[in-house]
Every structure is written in C-alpha cells, then in structure tokens.
C-alpha cells in the first residue's frame, strides 16, 4: 500500500478525473496506429505523467506498468563511466536528464540509438515501436536536444518520444515542430476538490470542506502536492475537523517565508549577512535557487504595500534572468534581496520609489 498519490493514481484514460477532452483525444491517438511524438507540457502536478502512463497503457496494455530499474553504464567522451538508473518496462524506457548531469547528450544518444536500432521482439506487443519518455525535457542541454532532432525522424519506425516539460520555451524549435504539443493545464479548484473527495470516499472518511479549502489554497493547482498534503494532514490529525486546521506545509516554504519576513524587518548589511546564511541553508537542502527566489518574492508580495508589489515582481524577474545567465546562484539571490531592501527602505523612509532600472 503506497502513498495516496500512487494508490489513487488513475491507471487508464477512463479513470482520469478531468480534462475529458484531452483524454478522448489521447485515446483516439493511441488507437489510430500512427502515434506521433508527443510533447506534454504544463505546470507541475497537473497530471502530465499520469496521462502519459495512461496513454502508454492504452497503447500496450497493463504490461507497461511492470516497471523495473536497470542500472546502465555509459562512457563519456572523456572516458568517465556514468552509472545511470533507468526506469523501464518492456515497452518503454524513461530518462531523466538531471540524473545524468552534464552528460545527458551521451546518454540520450546511446539510449535512443540502442532502442531505435532494435526492433520490438515481443511479437504479442500491440505496437511495433517502443516509447522513450524524457522527463524534465526542458532541462535537457542544447546539445542533447540537438542530438534528438535527427534521431526523432530517422528512427520513427521503431521508436516514439514522449517529452514531458513544464514549458516549451526551453525546447528548441526543431523539436517542437516534430512533436504533437499537448498542454495539460492545472486542474481547477473544483476539479481538485472532486479528486480529494474521491480519495476520501475510497478511504472511507469524509473530508470537511474547510480542510479541503485550505488544502486547495496551499497547493495552488498542484494536485500531486495536494494529495500529499492531504495524506499528511490525515496522518497527523485523523479527524480533520476543527475550524482552522493546520495545513502541512513543506519546511522550505515556511523557511522562505521566514526569510522574507526578516528582510522586511530590517534593512542593513548585517541583516543581509543573516539572510545569506538562511539562503545557503535552503540551497544546501537541495531547494532549487529559482524556487527559492520565487517563493521569497511571492511572500514579499503578499506582505508589502500595494505600490511596492510591481517593484518586487519586476526585480524578481530581473534577477532570475540574471541568475539563469550566470552560474553562482547565491550572488543573484542576494542581489535581489539587497535590491528589495533598498527599494523597501527608500519607500518607507522617503516615501517614493524609483522607476525600474
């Protein structure tokens, strides 16, 4: 018995709770026989992966859910050996570039070639091709994406690609043009509460609506997170009753909020140093720097005066761009914080704000 996220994950396209239209389209695609390369994109926790698995099941039947983890060894051009754990079934294989680091090109090339050059041996398989799923396709390096381009066309007979990304902006145009783009939007609050209630019903208890509401607000369209939060709440307080129920929140979010509060409390070099320590703490807990910056900015926006809100958003965007162009993330997060401090102090002491830039 696993986590609810997994336990109540829809296994077939019919089981899906929302985006009915998309489900029917996927179903007909799987049935049509000329299944294209697909690029699923949409916000985190919207159900991309679930839909991919459902589609695969539609394509190959339940055998696709028998996953195993293979350890593969790849040799980089510099003769370093990479051990990569690859999740695969008999019909598909999954790649996650972040597992591989900077050598994703080598891994992609190797795996694609291998799959593309071997035909499906299982005669009973419903499809002649295998599927390669690439998670986090937007974090593929440019080289790796370029390596995909030609193979996508050349080995169309034996292989289909399913890419999964948060946004298409980082996918190079040649790949976008070779894929069918499928957007999976985040579920609405209604849809999410439907799912939550469904889970509650299966678990044989009733979800009080205030609790449901607080889960929805804290997870902001991320169904995966909502289910985790839901389960955490259920474990912590089995009755789920009471007016103001404590929503289980990831620690780093709480911590980011603390950072934002301390920025607004005092603006000084010393405070900057304190905040830096906290940022380092967050980063060392493997929270991605962009997420840190964004979360802090959101919290700040919540707290400050209306006139300052555009400023903070502007600077958050500005410094996130800089961060993506640079390599030392902490520099840019701190630059953002220093900027916010300056703007905030200026506004509160002198009552004006500069124009952007």
């Amino acid at each position, binding site marked *: 018995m696993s986590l609810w996220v997994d336990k109540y994950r829809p296994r077939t396209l019919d089981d899906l709770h929302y985006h009915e239209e998309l489900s029917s389209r996927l179903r007909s695609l799987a049935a049509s026989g000329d299944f294209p390369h697909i690029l699923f994109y949409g916000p985190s926790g919207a159900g991309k992966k679930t839909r991919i698995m459902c589609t695969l099941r539609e394509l190959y039947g339940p055998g696709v859910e028998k996953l195993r983890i293979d350890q593969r060894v790849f040799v980089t051009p510099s003769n370093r050996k990479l051990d990569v754990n690859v999740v695969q079934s*008999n019909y598909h294989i999954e790649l996650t570039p972040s597992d591989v680091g900077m050598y994703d090109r080598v891994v992609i090339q190797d795996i694609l070639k291998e799959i593309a050059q071997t035909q499906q041996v299982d005669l009973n398989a419903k499809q002649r091709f295998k599927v390669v799923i690439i998670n986090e396709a937007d974090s593929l390096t440019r080289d790796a994406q370029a390596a995909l381009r030609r193979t996508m066309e050349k080995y169309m007979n034996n292989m289909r690609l399913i890419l999964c990304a948060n946004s298409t902006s980082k996918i190079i145009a040649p790949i976008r043009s070779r894929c069918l783009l499928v957007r999976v939007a985040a579920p609405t609050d209604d849809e999410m509460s439907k799912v939550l209630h469904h889970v509650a019903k299966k678990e044989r208890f009733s979800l009080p609506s205030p609790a449901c509401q607080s889960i929805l607000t804290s997870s902001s369209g991320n169904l995966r997170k909502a289910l985790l939060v839901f389960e955490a709440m259920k474990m912590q307080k089995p009755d789920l009753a009471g007016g103001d129920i404590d929503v289980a929140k990831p620690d780093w979010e709480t911590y980011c909020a603390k950072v934002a509060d301390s920025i607004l409390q005092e603006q000084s070099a010393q405070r900057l140093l304190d905040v830096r320590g906290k940022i380092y703490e967050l980063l060392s807990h493997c929270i991605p720097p962009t997420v840190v910056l964004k979360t802090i900015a959101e919290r700040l926006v919540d707290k400050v005066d209306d006139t300052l809100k555009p400023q903070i958003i502007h600077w958050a965007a500005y410094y996130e761009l800089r961060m993506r162009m640079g390599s*030392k993330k902490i520099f840019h997060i701190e630059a953002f914080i220093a900027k916010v401090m300056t703007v905030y*102090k200026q506004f509160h002491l002198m009552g004006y704000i500069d124009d952007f830039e």
Partner: protein
Amino acid sequence: MSDPTTSSSSRPVFEPTDIFDFDFPPPPQPVSTDISLDVDPITNEVVGNASGNSWGKIDTSPREFREAPSLGGSDFDEDEMAMMEMERESEKLRSTSNTARNTAASSRDIGQSAPNGASQDDWMNGPSQPQPVASSSRNRPALTPPPEREASPIDLAPLPMFESYLDICTLPTLRAETAEGKMVSFKRRNRPKPPVIQTTRTHKGVTTKTDAGDLLSVPLHRLLAEVDELKSQQKAIKLQQRYDEEQRRAERGVLTATSINSTMWVDKYRPKKFSDLLGEDRVHREVMGWLKEWDKCVFKRTLPGKKRKVEESENFVYDPLGRPRERILLLSGPPGYGKTTLAHIVARHAGYRTLEINASDDRSAATVSTRIKNAIESGTGLASEGKPTCVVIDEIDGASGGGDASFVRSLIKLIQDVPAKKKSNTPAKPLRRPIICICNDLYATTLRPLRPFARIIRFRKPQAQFLVKRLREICDRETLSADLRVLTTLVDVTSGDVRSCLNTLQFIKSKTSAVTDEAIKSSSVGLKDSGTTLQSVWNSLFIPIAAKQRRRAIGIDDGRYVDRISFQVQACGDYDKVVQGCFEHYPNLKPMDASLGNLCKVHDWLGYYDRLATKVGDSQEWELMGYMPYAITAWYSHLASPANNTKPTEWPKADYESYQARIANEEIATNMKALIPPIMRSLFLTTTTYTELIPLLMRIISPPLKPVNANIVKPAERAVLSRLVELMIPLGLQFWQEKGENGQPMMRLEPPIDVFVHYDGKRADDIIASRFAVRQLVAQAMDAEIARRSGAAGAEGTGTGADSFSRAYGLKSSSSMPGTGGVPTGQKIDKADLPATDFFGRQVSLQTTPSILLSVQEPTDEISPLRTGAVAPPVHLEKPSHAKSIFGFSASTSPLPVEQPPMKKRFVAKYKFHEGSLSAVRRNIKMSALM
C-alpha cells in the same frame, strides 16, 4: 694647450693601448701592438724629456681622435695619424721584420716632425707649426736613441745634405743648440737634422736600408716628390681603411660597443667567497653544516662538534659511512635569491668540485646513471684537480616525466643505494658524495617523491637593507649614481630578487649614469610575473593606500586605482576565489551608506562578473576573460575605506560548506530514491522529490502515536500504525537502533531523509517529535510485518515486483531479530504452506484449466516481473489464512485484478483479515472453506 705636468701624468694611463686599440683595424692588430710596444719606449722617453707644449699637443690629439673616432679632430691630427698608419701599412706590405721596428720608430718621428719641414704641405697648412718645430728642435736630443740603435753614420750622413734647406727653414730657432748634449760636432746644424733623419728613415723604410750614400745622390726635389707620392698613397690607403672600418662598425653596430663590457653584472659581482654571500646567514650555515656532515664520509675526518650534535638527535640512524641522514639537500626559493650561487660557493668552500646539471642538460633517468654516477664514483681524477665532486642539480622542479623511469625516481634510487639491476645480488655502490638539488617550487609534483628523502632548506627574501647596501657598492664601483631611497624602491619592486635588481641597474647604466625613480619605473616593465596572494588582493580592494605609503611607492596615484588593482587581480589569477572572498566579506565592511545604494551597485558588478565567468566557462570565450579583473576592480570605488583595516578578509568557505552539505543531502535523497518503487521514482522527479515528496512524507510517517504496548492500543491508533508500516516498507524506510553520542539508544531513520525537515538544525514545528518509544514500536511492527511477508515470499518463491528490497530485508530481519516471535511464526507458515501449494496446484488443475493456461502463458510473454502473475491465482485461492496484507500490497503494484477480470469473477474469495501484528493464531482450513 695643456699643462706639461698634467699631460705627462695622464699619458701613461691610457696613451698606448687606447690609441692603438682604437685606431687600427682589427687585422693588423698584432702588428700594431708590436709597433706600439716599440714606439712606447721612444714616446715615453720623449715624453719624459719633453717640456715643450707641442708634444703635449701631439699627445693629446690622439685622445681627441679617440673620442670622436669618425672624424678627425683637425687636419694636423689626421695627417699625423695618416702618416703613422701609412707607415705601418707599408711595413706590413714589405714585411721586413728586421726594419719594422726601426721604421716604426722613425715613422713616429716623421709624424712628429713632419711640420718641421719634411713636407711642405704640412708646413704651409699648419700655422702653429713654428712653435712645434722650435720645441722639437729643442727636444731633438731625445731622439737620439734611434741613432744608437741603428748605425750612427746613417744618422749623421744625411744631415749635411739637407743643411741648406734646413737652414732656411729653421733659421730663427737658434737656441736649440743648447739641447745638444751628445752631438757636439753638429752644433750649428742641429736643427735641420731631425727632419732629415726622419725623411731618410722613411726613405729607408721604402727602399729597405738604403745607405746614406744613396740619399746623397738623390736630389732633394725627387725625394720630396717621393715623399709626396708616398703620402698620397698612404692617404688613399687610410681613406680606404677608414671606409672599411666604418663599414664594419656599422655592421657590428652595438655589438662592438658592448663587447667592451659584455660581462653581466650578475656574473661580475657574483659572490666569490662564503663571506660575500648575501641573505640569511642561518640558511648559509645550514647548507654548509649539511655539507660538512659529509666530511666524515668524503674526507675521512670528523667535526667533533657537529658529530656530537647529530648523535644527540633522537632519530639518529647510524650510517656506516658516516653520511648525514638525508643524503640529498633541497634548496627551494623564488628566483634571484642566490640559491645556485650559494650551492656553488659552499661546495667550493668545503673543498668540492661542482658538477652542475641544469635545465639545459638532458635530464632523464639515464643522466643519473651516466653523468652523475660517473662523476661521483670516478673519484679524484685529473680533471677534478684532486677534489671530490659535489653534484648540483639546478632547476630540478623542471625535470619532467613521471613514473618509474623519471629523473627524480632514479635519483632517489641512487641516494637510497638501490642496485641498478634488480636481479643482481651485488649490493649497489653506496652514495659517497653529496648532492644538492635546487628548485623554485618545492611543492612541484615531480618533487613529491623526493621530499621525504631530502633535507629541505627554504630561502627567504634577503633583508632589504643588506641588499641595498650591496647594490650601493656595486653602483659606486660602476660609477652609477644612485641614492639609497631609489635602490630601496628597486628592491621593493623586484621583491628582493638580486638578479633582477642587478639586471635593472645594468640596463639603466647603459642609458644614463644615474638611477632615478623614473628609470626604475620604465625598466620595471619586465617585472617578474610573480603571483599576488589573495589576501593582498582583498586588502588592496578594500583598504585604500595610505597617503604616506602612496607617496613612497612610485607611480601610484590613488585617483587612478584601476590599473593598480586590476593588475593585482590579474597577477593573482584566481578570480573566482577573489570574488568569493569579496562576496563573503563585504557585509562586514564599514562604508555602507544608509540607503544600501552601494550594495546594489556592487551587486551589479557581481552579476556582471558572474555572467562573464559563465560565458567564459560555458562557451569557452576566453576573449572575455580580459574584462573580468575590471569587474572586480570596481568594488574598490564602492567599498574601499581605511576603516576596513581592522577586519581582515577571511578565507571564503560558506559557499563550499553549503555545497558540501548539498552534496551530502543529495546523496541521501538518491539513496532514498533507489529504494522506492519505480513508479514513485518516475512520478517524483528530482526537484519535486526535494520540494514535495520528502517534506510531506516526513509528516506522513510521523503521526501522533502514543508509545504504549502494541496489545492495548486503541483501534484507531492501531489503524494508523498499520498504515504507517504499510507505507514505510515499500518506500524502503526503516528505523535502526543506534547508540547516540551521549550513549542513549536512539532510533534512526534510514535513509536519513529527516535532514530535509531540519532547518538551522531545528525540526519543523508541525512535525511531532517522534519519540524513541514510538519509533521502537513502529520498528517492531515493521519487523513483524516483514517477517510475515518473508514467510509468504518463501512460500511463493518471490515477492512482488516492487519489493525485491523488502525480501532482502526480510531475510536479514528474520536472522537478526529472533526474539520478536515473528520468525517462528513465519517458519511455521512456511512449512504449512509448502504442501498447500502442491495441493493447491492439483486443486487448480482440477478445477480451472483456463486459469492455469493463462498462468503458463504469461511467463512466456513477460519475463521476470510476472512471476507474481504466475502465482497470482494461487494467491487468491490459497492465502486467506494469514497474509491478507500481502495480498493487498501485491494487488496494488501488480495489474492482475484489472487484467484478469473473468478469473476474478469465477473465484470470488471472501475472507476476513484477522488484524494483529503477529499472525500468532494459525488454523488449518480446508480449501473448500474458502470458497
């Protein structure tokens, strides 16, 4: 007109060599030196006696000529020199060695006395000639030596012949008579004599010792014509020579000029004695002491004092040959500190001959065996002047090559007395001579193997005042005016590099005769490319130079800091470290304005730097690297303040620490991800694992349980506990009992993903502290569950697709936890189940053929994971008694219920799960009871 005394005093100093070395073209030099030697006595003599001005003038004229070599000082000089040269030239042509001397002497005379009337041109041209004539006539007796050498008649004979002519010329100079001490008979006609003699001599030179009688027979006009002709010839030759000379000089250019003092000052003033050495005496003595320790081995003599000291030292190893413990000396230090000089001097001082091997030599392993060994073992040969050899290996850090066959390795073998051939049983010849190695970089990788065997002596910067003093002495000796302040600056600039100091001085000397700040500044372009330390870069970034210091240091104007600082940053080279240090230090600095405006500017530069660095690193655009120092330099304008003096920049470490912590945490997460079922793995990608899964999972697995006996817990809590167990097992989480730091037993979560909910070392507030007892309770429940499953797994042959881990774990737990009671139960079930399977198999084959077919067919389709599929029907039928939980688990991961709906319909099995951590109550039930 120079004073006679001064002229006479100055003459011996430079007259002979200077004049002749300079004037004559190189080819006839040997001849010319001969001649000059010959002339010397004469001229000296003349000089000695001379009191007249004219001589002084003649003598000085060559000096003028020397100073302006290309153009003669005056007609007179030119002519005279022409005569002299012509004479030598003609000598050479005739190569009459006999007369060479005489003619040379006489030519000199001609030159001197030409104005006296021998050649009318000169006489006519030189208006000041009456005077010289007078003096020369007065000095005439000085010319007597030639007559003495030669046959006197030659001198005497021609005189009457010229009498009339000379009388006309020299009539006014009657008082010359007084000078005649020797020749009494020719009193009256003495004056004309000298010219006559000279002409005759020239003549003689031409005609090779013509007799006096011949001269008489030749008419004067013919003689004069002959002289004229000769003169014009000489002039032509001389012009040609001068042309050639100029030509040559132009070709050789400066080379000829520098060849005069081609020795480098570095070599010229290299210390020759031990006491001359510059630098730390302690170091010198140490080197000397080490070398002296060899005396016992090399010279078979002992130094009483030293020996005692060595024996007293604790780890004294007795060496039968009396060698020092470290048989090799390694001198290290920056260039120009006098390491090589020291090695050579000390070796010589201690009575060795040195064999130097430096970077110019081939340095391979073969060198050790050939050159060094031969030199050391050959003993005292002829070449060594009876001295033993000390090998000095210079620049050893440049000896390339690693591995077994490298120079350094074989050197080590040599000093360790390792035999050259491994097989040979003959012991190697022990090393009996000292070896000194010299290097700049003590920590060069090539030297790593050598360091343990060597006595290492480090050179430090020589003290400035001694160095300045020595430089001052050298400047004095080289007539280069330099005051102490300038020299101190020079020493500062070169950071104590004696060699570069001397080279700079010599360079300056070649241009001017005084050392000035400007001269040093302009020549210090070729400064040593010495690295600056990070600390000094940070200091100069944050602390402006004090006014006093600024004035002292040359060429630093604080308004123009960019060049200075960017140079320093560049010299340091490690931009990333510099920036990291700045970044970690700047909030501690003083000059922060209240609006934090400075900070934003600094951060702009920081961002700029980071972008540059990324661009350089990612796309290898090294062109951009040139701008990076400036991005750092800009900090100065925002942050530099004298008050920062009190806060030294610390070595940046926060970033690295954070990085290490992150790596450690990533490792934990990776471990966890390796244990969770594959579907979870693909559902939670890297970032969502950190941001969603782990923090919330930690909350899920720490419910508010009370630590009570498992038997008396409330049903609700029991449900929570069982759910917890069911969650944790597939996720691969366990609690391990461990001894804490204070000796208290504690239950640790493994893999320790609880680090992700600990910020600032504190647990999040909303997670209930899981007490030891609770964890123990959970752990026991888990063990029991696993034990039960392992029993079931044993019955079925394998676990479900996901829990190969839990199977492994189960085996471990069943062996390690014998006391819980779970194991015996499991074993019992095991035994009970086995026949059941057999029995069951029969049963099924009897009743449901299609399902068997299905179960046979499936394994061929799907390979390993479908073993569950194969045994799936049995599971449905057979297991109700004890392992309902397993069924639930396997159902969730295997697709069987969905795939085989018909079968499910046919065998609808209903059973009740008897709840409890142990299936202690076991009943045997018939299959029929289940249906």
